[in-house]
């Protein structure tokens, strides 16, 4: 049981989804407990694997499906799961978010997608299977298959929302398919030049044959890179994201928003560091020179667009696009601290986005709207929800001791020591924008000011609302507890940031990244 822990991570949700599809047809009440239990089992597998990774001498767990062990067969004959510290940390984020959202899902799924519970949970669990598999796999083609699993379930989950969700999904299908196809094309070119699909194997061949100058490999790098950038909604390719996440059912957006973009950033880091290698990615391509400037444009545009929104979920969607810019920038400033920041920000951004979307779901349920105008007096009506929501918000801004502060700290340090001033300045700028965003929200909730600026109350503390409208009226416990849990995680990850950074440093130390100016 213990030695197969890494396989159990996927087995639990896979079998859970089949059980939901078949058993859920007869009795739809079974789906929720099946989903929560399989997520709990999967989380156990993840924690056990983390323990094994830390305990092992090389800090990796290699698991080859089908018994094609490295002792008897050449590497690449079977499909390998290659969990190093980076992979298992992101997997744990996926499983943790999945578990919390599974608990949260009970009431919203019943209300928003009636008679479709069994289908919803089938797709939900397969989504987790795909995302967790992406983080663990050590095979470039298997990665593509798992991206497809995650993408297809995502399309289904989003399209179950309102009527407008179907149109948004169609956009997502087109762009997502283009991204995945470009990635697949790139993998094909890699195979032509290296003759293997195993990530470790690819890297070994690239180093041994000196493929850094090969035109085919250069094109493969561009194709894989752009494919992933489309999938992660990096700025010019972000068009699918806001509509998809706004119109999706509450549970879908709470699951996809924290995970999908972040997992794709993990894929980029994996490709850059482990597959192509530091020398190939940073020294023999032009991406180091170009990407930070694209990141600058991306963050500014996304932040300004977030500022223009009058609806919480839509604003959060643009914040995600801006955050994607942070993390991509952290990779391409080519610096040890930047990469620590990037990886840590993947973790903390997932936690805080989860917090915000769970909060937005609760607000939508109780206040019936997520438009800024409908928020007045919410602090007295639902104090716990708003506390949880704003812990996430403060983390996005980067206030200590939330985790967002520490990850942003490393990103800014990276920008400073590598003397990428443009990246540093834009980080500061976007922090300012986020301060404005969230404090404007607080103002809306606490003060009696309407959208057009006219004063609705009669002075301080008077919101212009009746007693009825400000009476304590919290959301249901099955939704509130996951939100508070997520808020606690944001704080705990922030407080124990040093332990996580130590783990990330163990992972990064083998790559010889520059700790100062790179060129």
């Amino acid at each position, binding site marked *: 049981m213990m030695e197969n822990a890494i396989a159990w991570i996927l087995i639990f949700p*896979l079998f859970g989804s089949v059980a939901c*599809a078949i058993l859920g*047809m007869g009795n739809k009440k079974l789906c929720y407990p099946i989903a929560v239990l399989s997520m709990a089992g999967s989380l156990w597998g993840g924690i056990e694997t983390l323990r094994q990774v830390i305990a092992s001498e090389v800090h990796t767990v290699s698991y080859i*499906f*089908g*018994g094609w062990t490295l002792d008897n067969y050449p590497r690449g004959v079977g499909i390998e799961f290659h969990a190093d510290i980076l992979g298992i940390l992101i997997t744990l984020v996926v499983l943790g978010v999945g578990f919390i959202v599974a608990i949260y899902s009970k009431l919203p799924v019943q209300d928003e997608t009636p008679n479709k519970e069994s289908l919803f949970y089938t797709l939900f669990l397969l989504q987790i299977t795909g995302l967790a598999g992406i983080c663990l796999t050590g095979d470039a083609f298997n990665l593509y298959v798992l991206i497809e699993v995650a993408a297809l379930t995502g399309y289904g989950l989003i399209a*179950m929302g309102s009527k407008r969700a179907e149109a948004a999904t169609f956009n997502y299908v087109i762009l997502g398919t283009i991204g995945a196809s470009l990635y697949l094309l790139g993998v094909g070119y890699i195979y032509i030049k290296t003759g293997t699909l195993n990530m470790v194997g690819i890297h070994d061949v690239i180093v041994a044959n000196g493929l850094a100058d090969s035109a085919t490999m250069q094109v493969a790098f561009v194709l894989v890179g752009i494919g992933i950038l489309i999938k992660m909604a990096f700025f010019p390719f972000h068009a699918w994201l806001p509509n998809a996440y706004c119109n999706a059912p509450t549970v879908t957006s709470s699951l996809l928003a924290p995970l999908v973009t972040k997992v794709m950033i993990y894929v980029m880091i994996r490709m850059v560091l482990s597959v192509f290698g530091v020398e190939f990615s940073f020294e023999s391509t032009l991406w180091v020179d170009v990407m930070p400037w694209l990141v600058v444009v991306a963050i500014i545009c996304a932040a300004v667009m977030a500022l223009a929104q009058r609806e919480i979920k839509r604003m959060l969607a643009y914040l995600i696009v801006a955050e994607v810019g942070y993390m991509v920038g952290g990779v391409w400033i080519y610096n040890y601290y930047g990469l620590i920041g990037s990886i840590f920000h993947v973790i903390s951004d997932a936690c805080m986005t989860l917090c915000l979307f769970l909060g937005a779901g609760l607000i939508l349920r109780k206040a019936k709207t997520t438009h800024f105008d409908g928020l007045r007096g919410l602090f007295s009506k639902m104090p716990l929800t708003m506390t949880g929501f704003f812990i996430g918000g403060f983390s996005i801004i980067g206030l200590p001791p939330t985790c967002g502060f520490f990850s942003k700290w490393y990103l800014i340090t990276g920008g400073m020591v590598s003397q990428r001033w443009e990246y540093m300045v834009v980080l500061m700028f976007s922090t300012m924008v986020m301060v404005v965003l969230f404090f404007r929200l607080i103002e809306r909730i606490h003060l009696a000011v309407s959208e057009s600026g006219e004063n609705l109350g009669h002075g301080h503390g008077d919101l212009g609302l009746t007693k009825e409208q400000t009476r304590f009226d919290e959301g249901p416990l099955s939704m509130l507890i996951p939100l508070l849990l997520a808020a606690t995680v944001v704080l705990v990850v922030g407080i124990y940031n040093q332990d996580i950074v130590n783990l990330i440093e163990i992972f990064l130390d083998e790559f010889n990244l520059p700790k100062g100016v790179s060129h």
Partner: protein
Amino acid sequence: MKLLSFIPVLVVGVLLLYAAKDFPEWGSLDAPASKSPVSSHFIANTGVDTEVPNMVTAVLADYRGFDTMFETVVVFIAGMAVLAILKNSGRKKLVKREFEVDAEPDLIVTNTVRLLVPVIQIFAFYVLAHGHVSPGGGFQGGVLMGASFILVALSWDLETALIRFPFNWTTILGGLGVFLYAGIGLLSMFLGGEFLDYSELANIFTVSREMARYHAMLGVEIGVGLTVTAIMFSLYANLSTEGRHQRGL
């Protein structure tokens, strides 16, 4: 707009052509893909490892069986996602659409199909079961089987086909196919190997470890076949009637 979308197409095309200048020679023995230890192992040892004469099937269902399991899952997801989007949740009104006709099924068409369907289905079983030695396998067999039901739906109407293949069975069989595939993997894990290590099945069946792989491959192919059959038909039934499962095209 058309001109604008032409630009990325052109850029990708130029990139692909540029990459081709560095390709290894066509069919060359020195190409990395032919030289790599992985392909040499497949060519030299497939028969030794698995007793399966068809190398492609062995790579698909055993060496890279984990990929194929998720390909099956992808097919299953496609069916579930389309059902989730189109499933009639009581909102849509039942209106007759202009392409629905009330004409009786055509005599010549139905009688031809009556003759064809059994042949197609037997051929589907053949393709499924002979995947080890000849081109074929679960996906192809499943597609043929699913097509036979779609043919019935096309020549009579969907309701006639649904009598033979009730709609709820598509979800059950689709799930069962994935369950069969992953279940064989799980069983071999319980017997002491890694997930999907079919050779461990030799512990409970009285065959050699290699033959255990051979037979398990047939098992997983049947799982694939079940899922593909069910989902093919489910997709047709959903898409042709916008999820109402009535009459159809």
